[in-house]
């Protein structure tokens, strides 16, 4: 526990002050966007509880006494629910934590990892500190080293994720890792993981996925029924809310969407450029990219990021209904459809984005790269090539966890949105002629 020596009380106070201020400002900016659905309030409240009120997550929570932290989307949350614990996704966008983590992690590492490290050192975020265990998949280099570095302050279980996933033997490796995780989780929570509890876990997440699949139908609507930034907040809230509560809130949101659809109450205009965001994770409070897009008059129609849709999109498909069958279903579900660029062959990501472009009627793509996020940066080139062929403009925006680059980003995104508008206008004119 050597890491803690460097932080003192004063630093913590400063941190809390600064961090809550940043989080509040982003929250308010997001809420200020037009067309905020009333049903999104519980999601914003959840984010507020974590980042501003610094509340204890287990407060008022009777079912889940323990929180298990996870760092990537490859950790089956069903397994954690089966152990009667709640998964908390710790990937954070806190600028303040980032600046603390900066001291422990090399300059070129990605800010998300630095933020997580910062939280580990400062011990000021209850949501983070409560996690008695962190399951850290060994994915990109930064996360890999983070798992090692956090060991000094936290109880970490690294989980090996095979970089290849085409052969069954690779999935078998991951299956073994999941089996290894079972007794660790059982020991941590004191609950036995049985076939029955696994089935319950699948049900809990499945219900959330069902509501999300319904929500996605509304999100595909053009003109938009909901602002993308609000959706990002909703998806980010999933990290900190127990799935049941999230599902219930989502159900209400769906009902509101339905009534909006019936009343033809849209948040955007008919010809608003529909933009897709992909690339590095967009974690609260670092939601400047979605905010900028929508403040500049675009609509964030879809996102292909792991803190957004990807984490919850694919349902577990249980083939054999036994314990082993369910474990196998997890192993398959959490590697095969995952479009994380840490996998050697990730061509499926392009297909997935193409699918989203078609379904969400996307007109432009913002490719978000966090500074130092090599794996995502790698894939930009091929994306540019592919979408160039499809005549869909794509822009690479690199950002860091601070507010210094906001103005520059604003100009670029504004220009990008103008470009789409012009293109559409030209197309329209050509069509008329």
């Amino acid at each position: 526990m050597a890491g803690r020596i460097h932080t003192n009380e004063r630093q913590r106070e400063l941190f809390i002050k600064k961090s809550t201020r940043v989080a509040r400002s982003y929250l308010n900016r997001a809420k200020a966007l037009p067309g905020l659905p009333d049903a999104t309030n519980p999601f914003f409240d959840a984010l507020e509880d974590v980042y501003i009120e610094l509340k204890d997550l287990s407060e008022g929570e009777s079912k889940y006494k323990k929180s298990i932290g996870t760092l990537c989307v490859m950790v089956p949350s069903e397994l954690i629910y089966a152990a009667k614990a709640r998964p908390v996704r710790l990937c954070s966008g806190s600028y303040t934590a980032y600046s603390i983590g900066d001291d422990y992690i090399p300059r070129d590492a990605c800010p998300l990892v630095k933020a997580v490290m910062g939280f580990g050192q400062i011990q000021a975020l209850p949501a983070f500190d409560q996690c008695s265990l962190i399951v850290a998949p060994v994915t990109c280099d930064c996360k890999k080293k983070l798992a090692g570095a956090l060991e000094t302050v936290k109880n970490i279980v690294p989980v090996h994720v095979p970089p290849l996933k085409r052969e069954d033997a690779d999935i078998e490796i991951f299956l073994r890792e999941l089996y290894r995780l079972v007794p660790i989780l059982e020991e941590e929570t004191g609950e036995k993981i049985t076939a029955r509890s696994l089935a319950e876990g699948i049900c809990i997440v499945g219900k959330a996925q069902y509501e999300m699949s319904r929500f996605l139908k509304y999100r595909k609507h053009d003109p938009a029924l909901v602002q993308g930034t609000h959706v990002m907040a909703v998806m980010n809230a999933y990290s900190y809310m127990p799935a049941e509560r999230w599902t219930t809130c989502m159900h209400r949101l769906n009902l509101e969407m339905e009534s909006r659809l019936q009343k033809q109450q849209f948040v955007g205009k008919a010809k608003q450029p529909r933009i897709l965001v992909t690339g590095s994770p967009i974690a609260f409070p670092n939601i400047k990219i979605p905010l900028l897009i929508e403040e500049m008059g675009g609509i964030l129609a879809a996102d292909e990021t792991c803190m957004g849709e990807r984490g919850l999109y694919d349902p577990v498909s249980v083939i054999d209904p036994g314990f082993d069958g369910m474990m196998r279903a997890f192993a398959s579900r959490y590697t095969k459809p995952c479009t994380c660029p840490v996998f050697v062959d990730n061509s499926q990501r392009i297909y997935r984005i193409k699918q989203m472009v078609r379904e969400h009627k996307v007109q432009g793509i913002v490719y978000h790269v966090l500074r130092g996020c090599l794996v995502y940066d790698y894939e930009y080139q091929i994306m540019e090539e592919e979408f160039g062929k499809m005549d869909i403009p794509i822009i690479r925006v690199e950002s860091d966890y601070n507010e210094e680059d906001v103005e520059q980003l604003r100009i670029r995104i504004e220009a990008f949105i103008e470009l789409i508008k012009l293109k559409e206008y030209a197309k329209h004119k050509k069509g008329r002629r």
Partner: protein
Amino acid sequence: MKVRKTGVVIVCAVCTFLMVSAFFAKSFVLYDFHMEASDYEYSGAKGAKPPSVETNVWFSYGQSGRLLQYGLDSGIRAEDMTVYALSQTGESYTVQGNEDPIRRDSLGYFIAALPVTEQDMDGDGAPETVYDYARADLGPNAFNPAPQKFGEPDIPFELVFAERKYIMVYYENEILTDAEILVTSHSGDKEVYRTDEHGWIRGLANREIREGFTASYSPDSDTVYRMHYALEDYPYFTEHFFAAHIPLLIIFLLAGIGMIAVCLIRNQLAKKDPAYAVYSRERVGIYSGTWKQKTNSKFLFIRWLCLFTGMFLWTYGGKLIHQGQVLNEISIPVFSCPFNLDQVAEVPCYYLAHLPSLFHRFGDDFPVRNMVYGVMFLATTLFCFIFLGRILCGFLCPAGLIQDLMDKLRQLLHIRPIVVTDKLNRLLQPVKWVWIILFLGFAFTGGDFCDICPLKGFTTAQGGYWTNLYLGGFFAVVMLIGSFFIKRFWCIICPMGYLMGLFKRFNLFQLKKDCTACTECGACYHACPMRIKSIYTEREEEHVQTVDCLMCGECIHKCPEDHALSMTLCGKTVFQSSRQTFLSGYAATENGTAEIGERED
């Protein structure tokens, strides 16, 4: 590397074993229905006449004393008769009295030449010379696709039952064409039939044939030849019917022992495995709790319905549905055993496995008829191969149903399956090729594929037919154990299934993939009983149906993406994947509270 080498060695050993053992198939006897000399009797034998039998000549064999009876007058002594038997090589020989043992290679076909009598048959006052013969086709393996003609010079008038429904008439070893034959049925009805240009009596129902009938023919006014013909009948729910199930029971018993053994061995292995150690602690084998997906699929219901109907039709259909008649001219490729004479339609497996006899179906006397039937056979088989393909495997095949039921049984017992990884699947391919070679080529070497066919014992026994099982019976045990742990295990190595899949592109039913809608989650691959990998890796081609595809629809059922996978009939979609259906089991109740779904304890 070590694992891979052992795998290759095992596969080589299995393939060699299959090849070599096939030639000694008859030496491995799983069950043999005995035919002992003392078990056949005829009138005159001391006091052995069963009380219910009013006639004087009957044949019986086996412990259960199966009888065949003829409407003969009394007063014939054993010494007055000559009994001829037929061996498997088609050789006819005489059996001397009760003490003479029936040879091992006897087909169970007998003709008794009865004493010649003088009777006034046509009522014109002048007595005719009546030659009486009694023929019985008995015993196990009573099905013989080629007609079994004795060709004895002592028996000028001969009837032969062929192709499940026709009676062929021979006179002086020649085909008797365009002659009037008087047929007296068991119930005493008399009817005159005229043989056609091939010497066939057509129109006699199977039931009438099996009950026994008498056909008489008079070449001139002073002579009458009569043959009393009886084909062994297989009525349901009799002693004989249940006796037929004995080999099947033995197979299931052995398979049960094998399954338990596999479970025990696996538990021991799992204990040594660090990853599964946690699992073996209490959860290997039978454990409580399963996952039940709450999606209802009409398509899969229809599939199960079709499978059960298929099994019923190919086991009992001929007897129950159509007065014993069988659609003999049409062959529908499913793997059900033709030794069951009650099939609703022919299955091509016999002639595909005995290609040399395809155009010698009725012996060498009928070149035209042989040709017509051969062509009919090939045409209907090819039609099914080309236009239906392996959908028959998924929807109709009785062997498929047995395997699906074994899989359901495993799920019911909550026993872990053996997962066929792509590596194991690759290792199984050579075994499939060996089966194909044996299937198509074994007959050319003088062998009989039926002796090694694992499916010979199933539909035949269910239909009440006595079938001797040799090596194939042991393979049936392996097949059952395999299909218990691996879904559709036999289908992976099925030789006929492979042939059926070859024309996949012309099939009316097509499995199609919308590659743009796929997220490569692999659910289809894991759901696929045939472990077709390309279905989830394919990203360009719309047609994803491979040679192995059974069209069972499991992949579509388990696919969570909207219209990613679909089945089409003549271009029209009949079944397609849908996210809404997939997740429908999770749908929240009206008030929005999440309700923990269906599960089983």
